């Protein structure tokens, strides 16, 4: 059954993102150890694991906010190397949402959204603004378009951040603990937007501890610990009978409350 599924998955498309034997060190500290993953187009991957397990570092390597020292990373067939052209090409295709939102505080919400399309995609201003308004509708805050980020709540800021990434029409979205900095009552509004994205078929890699979200949307769960990928499984299997003890321990801790 599992074999069949994976065969189907192979047939569904080429890998959108591929990491082969990726290794990374911070000085002597080995943060990523022989990471191998393939993410196909439209696949939704949720990465979880204890803090310090290297999950954020791993996804930050995919758009080269962090540099890996060994191994290969391919995004949409382009290899990520020191070549600035490759890095910029990949960054245009890969959207990223951060834990701390990282909106540009000196620009209005609308300007935050239109900046990259105008300057990187060379989109005419009017077209960029129309696109931005569409996306603000989609994240349900079109009425905030002319405010500054500092005037919005955390949940609203994070939705703006998602819309800002989508403005570049990325092929892949990376989420680096997007709800960890939010007050509990704001988590849902952000997750709702992410679920919507997943249902529309966006290729996504989410580092998150929101296991409800993982159950709903994930095609694949990845569990990392101490720089290694410990377990890769579809969510049903992952939650029902995890294979490794470390996964069991982690799940018991995270699901116990």
């Amino acid at each position, binding site marked *: 059954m599992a074999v069949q599924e994976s065969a189907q998955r192979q047939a569904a498309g080429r890998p959108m993102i591929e990491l082969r034997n990726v290794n990374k060190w911070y000085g002597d500290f080995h943060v990523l150890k022989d990471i191998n993953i393939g993410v196909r187009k439209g696949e939704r991957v949720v990465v979880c694991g204890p803090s310090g397990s290297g999950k954020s570092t791993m996804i930050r390597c995919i758009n080269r906010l962090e540099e890996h020292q060994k191994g290969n990373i391919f995004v949409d067939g382009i290899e990520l190397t020191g070549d600035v052209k490759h890095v910029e090409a990949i*960054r245009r295709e890969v959207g990223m949402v951060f834990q701390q939102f990282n909106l540009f505080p000196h620009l209005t919400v609308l300007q935050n959204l239109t900046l990259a399309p105008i300057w990187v995609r060379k989109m005419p201003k009017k077209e960029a603004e129309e696109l931005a308004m569409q996306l603000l509708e989609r994240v349900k805050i079109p009425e905030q378009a002319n405010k*500054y980020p500092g005037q919005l709540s955390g949940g609203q800021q994070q939705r703006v951040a998602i819309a800002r990434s989508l403005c570049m029409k990325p092929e892949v979205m990376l989420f680096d603990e997007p709800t960890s900095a939010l007050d509990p009552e704001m988590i849902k509004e952000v997750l709702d937007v992410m679920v919507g994205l997943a249902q529309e078929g966006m290729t996504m890699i989410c580092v998150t501890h929101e296991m409800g979200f993982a159950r709903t949307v994930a095609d694949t769960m990845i569990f990392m610990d101490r720089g290694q990928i410990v377990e890769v499984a579809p969510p049903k299997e992952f939650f029902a009978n995890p294979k490794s003890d470390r996964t069991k321990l982690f799940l018991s801790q995270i699901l116990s409350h």
Partner: protein
Amino acid sequence: MTDITQDASTGFIEPRRGIVERAWEWARANLFNSVLNSILTLIIAALIARIAIPLFNWAVVDATFSAPNDATCKAAGGACWAFIADWGKFLLFGRYPEDQRWRPTLVIVIFVAMMLMSSRARLGGKLLLAMWAAGVVIAVALMFGGFLGMPYVETELWNGVPLNLLLTVGGCGFAFPIAILAALGRRSRMPAIRWLSIAYIELIRGVPLITVLFMATVMVPLFLPTGVTIAKLWRAEVAFTLFFGAYLAEAIRGGLQVIPRGQYEAADALGLGYWRKTLLIILPQALSISIPSLVNTSISAFKDTVLITVVGIFDVLGDVNNAMNAPEWRSAYWEGYSFVALLFFAACFYMSRYSQRLERSLSRTRPGARRR
């Protein structure tokens, strides 16, 4: 005094009491609210009286406002404002041809007007920048003359206040782009650029302005090919530019340092690339944070321009020194220096008030700018 005022916060209506009553109440609450404070208040009041009263007598009561020479003033015992009345125009404009003094006057008017417009009117940044650039060009053209029937005046004769203004605005104006590049260069990941920037900033900051001025005016001509001369004023201006540049660079670096890493990462993740990231995201935030220190640097730059006297170019302070060579006013240095001090105080006070207002208005229109 029975005006009725309504207290906005409580809606309570009370008759306004007499001013003396209120002053006394204020003094009781603020100056005499404890034994120690009462003693301090009395001591300070005595000190103020000892200084302020003689100063007032000197400056106003015993002062001479019109006299042929300082001997007459001495007889009166007070300030000799007659010197300023007699030599005021020379102090302001120096040896600039007398019949052409309307030109430097106009230059001063232009600069003061631009300063007022920058602080009062809500003009856009680009418009202000264009206005200042045009203002400086017009000022230099006016000083030079040689067109529209205005006789040509060589830079040797550009003295007094217009010189201080031109050196400050021109120096800071040219220094600003250099400072931005040096500040960015100092944080560059490329070693050659980083070390070059550090060398420039630290070398200049490690040397007194006088040294830089002497280098530019005395040593630079030695390295120029024979036959090539650059007017001393321009050499001095280059020295000021380099000097201000290093200090402005440090002010800007201070702003760059507080921009959170997330801003760089967000810009990188959008694929903006180095220059767009720097110009659109990082610098606008860093510069608005560094405004107070940029203005501080500009204020001290303005005051530093008087040092140009040491290389034989006569700004307003140089003019005072020259004027006191006149035999009939030899003892009027108190008055001459007070005049210069008041001019500089007025200008610097205005600039620092302006920077405070600017800071407030920036933090108002960009509520998030300071928080993250």
